[in-house]
């Protein structure tokens, strides 16, 4: 379905999981983006290595969602480039990118509200997995979805919608996973469990970029963390290093 001529990112020749310094699967170089006249990203550099979990943290309005929008092809950057497995994909269409294995779970609106749960899952089959398999794995992951397969997604509770949105991402075997505020609206015990699953898919070679405001849970499973504020990456480091920096940034005043 991808008509952009992109090669599959999952080419095993690129880098193997065991590499000491794996080549980045996803890389942003000097990305700038704006809404209308207002520039929101002022040169973002970021890279995600194969099979790793990178946490992108930052306060409200820092530009995290915008960054994901640029990566997933929803918002063309005004400058800078996005590379997937070493290939420049700046400005490629979202559907083409999805076709080569880039899976995005958008913030808070990841389901088709007027379709049933099952139909939502059917849409996930555009990524090349059979419907029966998608359903089986999704219902296994979240039994609640199985009970409600014929309910319109728009009538489900906030958390149930979030489950559905995540199920799509977790069961279609993506190469790169972008998660925006995964924990929003979910009960804490589900959040913990989900992060374990994210860790597990990363172990299988999926590269994950997680955006969160709430640092604690995600830092537990991340390999690398970055802080973003007012449109720039202000620091990158190990989760523990970032954690101490975070408490300065967020709570230093009080």
């Amino acid at each position, binding site marked *: 379905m991808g008509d952009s001529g992109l090669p599959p990112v999952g080419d095993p020749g690129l880098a193997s999981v065991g590499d000491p310094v794996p080549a980045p699967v996803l890389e942003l170089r000097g990305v700038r983006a704006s809404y209308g006249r207002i520039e929101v990203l002022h040169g973002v550099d970021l890279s995600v290595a194969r099979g790793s979990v990178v946490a992108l943290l930052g306060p*409200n309005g820092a530009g995290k969602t915008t960054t994901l929008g640029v990566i997933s092809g929803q918002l063309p950057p005004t400058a800078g480039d996005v590379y997937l497995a070493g290939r420049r994909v700046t400005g490629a269409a979202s559907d083409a990118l999805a076709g080569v294995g880039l899976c995005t779970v958008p913030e808070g609106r990841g389901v088709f509200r007027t379709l049933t749960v099952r139909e939502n899952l059917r849409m996930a089959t555009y990524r090349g997995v059979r419907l029966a398999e998608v359903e089986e794995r999704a219902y296994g992951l979240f039994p609640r979805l199985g009970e409600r397969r014929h309910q319109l997604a728009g009538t489900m*509770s906030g958390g149930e919608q979030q489950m559905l949105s995540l199920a799509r991402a977790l069961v279609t075997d993506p190469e790169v996973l972008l998660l925006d505020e995964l924990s929003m609206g979910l*009960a804490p015990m589900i959040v913990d*469990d989900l992060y374990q699953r994210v860790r597990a898919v990363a172990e299988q070679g999926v590269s994950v970029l997680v955006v969160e405001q709430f640092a604690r849970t995600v830092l537990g499973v991340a390999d690398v963390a970055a802080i973003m504020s007012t449109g720039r990456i202000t620091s990158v480091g190990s989760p523990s290093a970032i954690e101490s920096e975070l408490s300065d940034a*967020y709570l230093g005043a009080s």
Partner: protein
Amino acid sequence: MNDPVAPDSPSPAAVSSSAVPPLLELSEVVVRFGGNVAVDGASLTVDAGTIVGLIGPNGAGKTTTFNVITGLERPSSGRVRWAGDDISGLAAHRRARLGLARTFQRLELFGSLSVAENVLFAAELCRRQGGTVRPPVVDVAPDVDAVHETAALLERVGLGDLAATRAEELPTGLARLTELARALATRPRLLLLDEPASGLDERETERFADLLVELAADGLGILLVEHDVPLVMRIASRVFVLDLGRILASGTPAEVQRDQRVIDAYLGAAPVGEV
């Protein structure tokens, strides 16, 4: 989970020992959507000047309960009482005029208006409907005009600098604060908050918690739905746990946190799915 839980029997006396009826009382509310039972006989009470937490797993029926209280959803059975009066049959806007305000889990801001106008609109409505008999929630004279009350409210929630921003351009967290300010502009006696802290960062959450405590100290009743359990446990004086539409447990934060059923259904560490 079928056995009735003693502390939740719908007797107001059991909950608040004083003779004054609770500000809000929900008894035996049932909401069905086709075959699904979203709320299955839930009862709870909220007193003025207290923060009450309503927590529970996803899909437990918390938002639906809010919709029943505010009149956006008709329950299949059950009663809603306001300071002792049965308001089950009242339309949503009439309940609001009694001093019942809420925020939404899925944001419902007036996107085409500025932040200030969102709040101003509510302040003006309040004045037109005689809501000024209730005291303002910010430190202004009761007969202050709508503009000044709006300005004070925006400062209070920390949105003073964003007054002119169009609401639809706000990031989630600030949008939630705008909804809060708008709800406060109606000079409520009871405030229902549906996941107000999701989308706030840690520092904003801190500030937000302080704000709620202050509001309650001034006499406002607050019913708080939130998945940020530490936040709820810190500021709520009483917590109801909803599961599968029923009140699973209720009590002080400490009691609830120790309750094994609550740990199993909501707080616990066991994985959810089987796979």
